[in-house]
């Protein structure tokens, strides 16, 4: 009985704080995406030719985000029936956008015009802990071209 109460309490806490944190994070992501729109990030490998006056520098941004208890519970249920796990989709979406924003922030602070060859790397850092993914790390890196 006590176990059940603890479980329900954890689910309620996870739902409340999780939803709040996600909403807040999305608001802040959208706001910063608007501000940093001036620094485009592209996946192209070939830098512009015939414009030799650029300095290039590696920029990177990373973030570790954890999913809340409620979502992990729901995802566990999904594992029984199959189908889309929306709770993890938003987790990864937030992590990627945040990592890219950090790359843009760093590039903008360096005075860069554009970031080339962006690579995204995802690692689950909860491997081997029994309960599958709980938190993911997303690393984004690319080459910033700084006009000199």
């Amino acid at each position, binding site marked *: 009985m006590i176990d059940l109460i603890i479980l329900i309490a954890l689910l309620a806490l996870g739902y409340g*704080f999780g939803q709040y944190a996600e909403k807040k994070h999305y608001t802040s992501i959208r706001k910063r995406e608007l501000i940093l729109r001036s620094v485009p990030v592209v996946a192209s490998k070939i830098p512009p030719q015939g414009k030799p006056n650029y300095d290039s520098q590696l920029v990177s941004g990373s973030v*570790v985000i954890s999913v*809340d208890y409620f979502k992990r519970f729901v995802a566990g249920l999904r594992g029984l029936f199959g189908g889309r796990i929306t709770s993890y989709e938003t987790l990864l979406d937030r992590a990627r956008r945040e990592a890219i924003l950090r790359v843009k922030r760093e590039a903008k602070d360096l005075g860069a015009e554009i970031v080339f060859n962006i690579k995204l*790397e995802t690692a689950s850092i909860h491997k081997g*802990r029994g309960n599958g993914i709980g938190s993911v790390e997303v690393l984004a890196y690319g080459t910033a071209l700084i006009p000199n």
Partner: protein
Amino acid sequence: MIVSNLEIIPGKRIKTHFGLVQGSSVRAKHVGRDIMAGLKNIFGGELRGYTELLQESRQEAYDRMLDQAKAVGANAVLNVRFSTSSVAAGAAELFAYGTAVILE
């Protein structure tokens, strides 16, 4: 030292290739951070402690790669890649590698 994950640097020509340089670092997280992370696993949100930890160890891997590049006498590292792998529960290896070259 120019470090880039492009294969060519605009306006520069590669004079000498030295081949692969690499650096890695294996880190485990400490207990205090683990407890905080355990709490965050209930509430959700960014685990700042882990973000910093991984950034520090990635920086170390990166510095080791640069040391190797300097040791062979390169002035640039091109086509840099990062990778992460978990070796054991609670420990991760951060790995950075690239091609050391002399640019002119």
